[in-house]
């Protein structure tokens, strides 16, 4: 049984999705418990897998018993075992949160929603654990198509946003597929490890077509992760989607694409090729500096809460792309650690935005007015998330900055260090603007006038929404305070790739 754990991560949500599609239309009540059960199974399977990886080293799981390079292989090392846990845990937390919101926002499409939801999770987690470059494309399309559907379930403006996303997303996926095609022509293999071995063995790394493949894949992945200036699809798609959808997509999609980029760069092309032979670090780091700064500044200009957070994601993508391309061990560790911490930070603030929207029906940031009195627990969790995004110790956001800045200093990219610090400060402004509105009200009284106002009654959100938020906040602190074991796993992976 335990040998099958990698497959379980993917298959539990996948089969449940099909089952819900068949049965859920008649029996609506069955959807929610089934979603929880399947995702819990998936979480357990991914945790088991991580422990097995720690015990036994890299796991190779041949799907259907067909050996690579012909069959599909799941290849799991420390990196994707961690990312798989992040995906399944985020999906589970958002799943619990969805209980009321799905009924409220898409009452006539509950079973359809959950079918797509589970398929999306299966697609994302599949992309992470697969060891096959073409299989990754298939799963990429599964996750993209389902996310188009999930976003389009939102209110009216979501339709146009989805259309934009479809166009951009399809272009991105096509770029990726073309790149894989070039690699296939050159090496005759689709298995990631095999491609790398063929490239090295046949001395193909100098070939022009391999470089074209590298560029195609990188650009395709950049479009999918909304790396500035290829980001325009993201803000509206996340801002107008149903709250559950954006709470699932925002933490995961961009992060999974970062993972794909790292996997392609380190495993398929290899450190030697990407950092030494191509040596494009300077350009990409300047691009990421621009991404960080412009994402942060555009976030400042927003008055819609979720849109502001969406622009922050664009800035955070810049952190990770920059961190990876520093070609430095600390930078890479920081970028991978940031995948984990940023997934939960984003989840935390998006859950908060969802609760605010659910409570007030208002998208504007002014909706948080008076929240410290009305919803103290919600605000407390939000503050943890906000502090993490600003980078205040001991939340996990501080430690990802700690490693990223180390990487920047080590490799001499001071522009990246300065961009990180500036973005921290802009984040501080962004979040203290919200905290101010919640604390003082949108228009505070002149003078000493707050004594005699009626205290507003406490009215927290329902437990099914509040508990996931509090759990996420607790996770942010836990990941920060106990970052050492996580960093060790990441360090082992990074050292094994030969990056120094």
């Amino acid at each position: 049984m335990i040998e099958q754990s990698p497959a379980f991560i993917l298959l539990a949500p996948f089969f449940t999705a099909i089952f819900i599609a068949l049965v859920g239309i008649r029996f609506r009540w069955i959807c929610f418990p089934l979603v929880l059960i399947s995702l819990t199974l998936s979480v357990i399977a991914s945790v088991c897998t991580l422990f097995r990886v720690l015990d036994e080293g890299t796991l190779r799981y041949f799907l259907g018993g067909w050996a690579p390079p012909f069959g599909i292989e799941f290849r799991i090392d420390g990196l994707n075992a961690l990312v798989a846990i992040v995906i399944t845990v985020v999906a589970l937390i958002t799943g619990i949160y969805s209980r009321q919101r799905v009924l409220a926002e898409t009452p006539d499409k509950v079973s359809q929603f959950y079918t797509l939801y589970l398929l999306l999770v299966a697609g994302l987690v599949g992309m992470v654990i697969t060891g096959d470059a073409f299989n990754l494309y298939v799963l990429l399309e599964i996750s993209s198509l389902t996310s188009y559907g999930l976003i389009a379930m939102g209110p009216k403006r979501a339709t146009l946003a989805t259309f934009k996303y479809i166009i951009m997303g399809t272009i991105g996926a096509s770029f990726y597929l073309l790149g894989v095609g070039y690699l296939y022509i050159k090496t005759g293999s689709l298995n990631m490890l095999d491609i790398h071995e063929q490239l090295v063995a046949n001395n193909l790394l100098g070939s022009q077509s391999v470089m074209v493949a590298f560029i195609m894949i990188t650009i395709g992945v950049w479009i999918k992760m909304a790396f500035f200036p290829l980001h325009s699809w993201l803000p509206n798609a996340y801002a107008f989607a149903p709250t559950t959808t954006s709470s699932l997509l925002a933490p995961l999609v961009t992060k999974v694409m970062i993972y794909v980029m790292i996997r392609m760069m380190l495993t398929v092309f290899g450190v030697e090729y990407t950092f030494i032979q191509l040596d494009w670090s300077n350009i990409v780091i300047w691009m990421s500096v621009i991404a960080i700064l412009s994402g942060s500044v555009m976030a400042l200009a927003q008055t819609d809460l979720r849109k502001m957070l969406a622009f922050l994601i664009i800035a955070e993508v810049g952190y990770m792309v920059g961190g990876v391309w520093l070609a430095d061990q600390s930078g890479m560790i920081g970028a991978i650690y940031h995948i984990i911490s940023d997934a939960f930070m984003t989840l935390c603030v998006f859950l908060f935005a969802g609760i605010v929207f659910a409570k007030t029906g208002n998208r504007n940031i002014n909706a948080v007015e008076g929240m410290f009195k009305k919803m103290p627990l919600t605000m407390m969790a939000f503050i943890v998330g906000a502090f993490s995004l600003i980078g205040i110790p001991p939340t996990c956001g501080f430690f990802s900055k700690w490693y990223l800045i180390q990487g920047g200093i080590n490799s001499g990219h001071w522009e990246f260090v300065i961009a990180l610090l500036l973005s921290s400060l802009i984040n501080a402004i962004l979040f203290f603007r919200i905290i101010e509105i919640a604390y003082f009200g949108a228009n505070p009284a002149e003078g000493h006038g707050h004594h005699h106002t009626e205290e507003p009654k406490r009215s927290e959100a329902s437990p099914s929404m509040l508990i996931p938020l509090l759990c996420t906040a607790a996770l942010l602190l836990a990941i920060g305070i106990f970052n050492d074991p996580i960093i060790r796993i990441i360090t082992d992976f990074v050292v094994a790739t030969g990056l120094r």
Partner: protein
Amino acid sequence: MTPTTLTSFTPVLASLVSLLAVLPIVYFGRKPNLREGFTFLAGFIKLGLVLSMLPIILAGNTIEYTLWEIVPNLSIAFRVDSFGMIFALVASSLWIVTSLYSVGYMRGLKEHSQTRFYSFFAISLSATIGVAFSANLLTLYLFYEMLSLATYPLVTHHQDKEARTGGRTYLTYLLSTSIGFVLPALIFIFLKTGSSMDFTSGGFLSGHIGASEALVLLLLFTFGFAKAGLMPFHSWLPGAMVAPTPVSALLHAVAVVKVGAFCIIRVYTGVFGIDFLSNLDLGTMITWIAAFTIITSSLIALTQDNLKRRLAFSTVGQLAYIILGVALLTPYGLTGSMMHIAMHAFGKITLFFCAGAIFQATGKKYISEMVGIGKRMPITMIAFFIGSMSVVGLPFAGGFWSKFYLLWGTVSDGQHFMLIVLLISSLLNAAYFFPIVFKAFFCKPEESLFENKIQEAHPCAVIALSLTALGSIFLLSIRI
């Protein structure tokens, strides 16, 4: 006896106890007497814990405790030495007095959200003691940030437009300097030395970095710890005066600003090392910045009519004394700086208590409205007189000793210009404090704005300010 290092959990507890007190404070939020009872309980336990370590420290030993390794090679760790001990003693004893004063002030004015007030006050004290007992730079930074954020709700307590503006200034200065300057300096040092960044008596940077790097790092730290209010990063201090007076008193005369000065002294002595700095001759530049701050802030203080703002600018100047003392890089200057942390704390807190008592009893904020107030509030104004003597440095209160050592430091180093700066500044201090006292007592009957009837503030407040005034005098009898 040779100095030994003991391992004990006490410093951690001393920091944590007030954080734990937040739970009962929030839980009993609707029963004010019980709630304040827990504040006092935590205060006395904290003081007791700090005092219990005093004999060990006086015997020349240090106490250490490592919580856990948070980043490879780098731990959250506590260490108690004599300098940290002085600061912790001052902060924990003044917390009790301030709590007493807060009860009088907050109840006297029927302030709102008192539970929140006492909770964040307790958190701030945890952070302060944490800073005092930090064993390395990372732990110091952690508590430093915690203090900035925990004091924000206190500074903006009134929740009106003015508080919002003050709070914005406060956080903008403190966060932008700590994230923008201290954090990169911290990471740079970690990368260069690869060490655990523990404070050691001779510093640990020597040999790892060159002169120009040392200069940049020194400036990053000196301005990065903006809580010390060195110009041009001082504007948050007058801005933060929108806070209720007990907050201004403890946090802006003692905890927050002194944490800034404490951090700077720690970094100079424990990270750079005095010898390393004097070899590179980096102290001179800092003394000039400090001297500029001293004179300018004293001159600004002269022009302020709002009593709390005048006190705030006076604080900016007095903090610069501390920086100047350590930047002289002589033993006397350093002793003077460390003593000035304690002496100025008692003196300035008395002055703030008096300002708050006057506001609570009469509603007056401006000095021009306080003519003749000595007839109405004699105890308060006598305490004010004692406090101002201590801050000016006259030989009737504790402030004399620290000024004495500071002056001695300048003379022994041959820095005659700095000697003149200190003397001029003392004259300016006298010029902005004594007229207040003089006008309060010795005005013509027709000038007096108050009736000839004694009516003091809430008794708790009067007791508190008398205690700190007596403390200032008592400190005269202590010599380190």
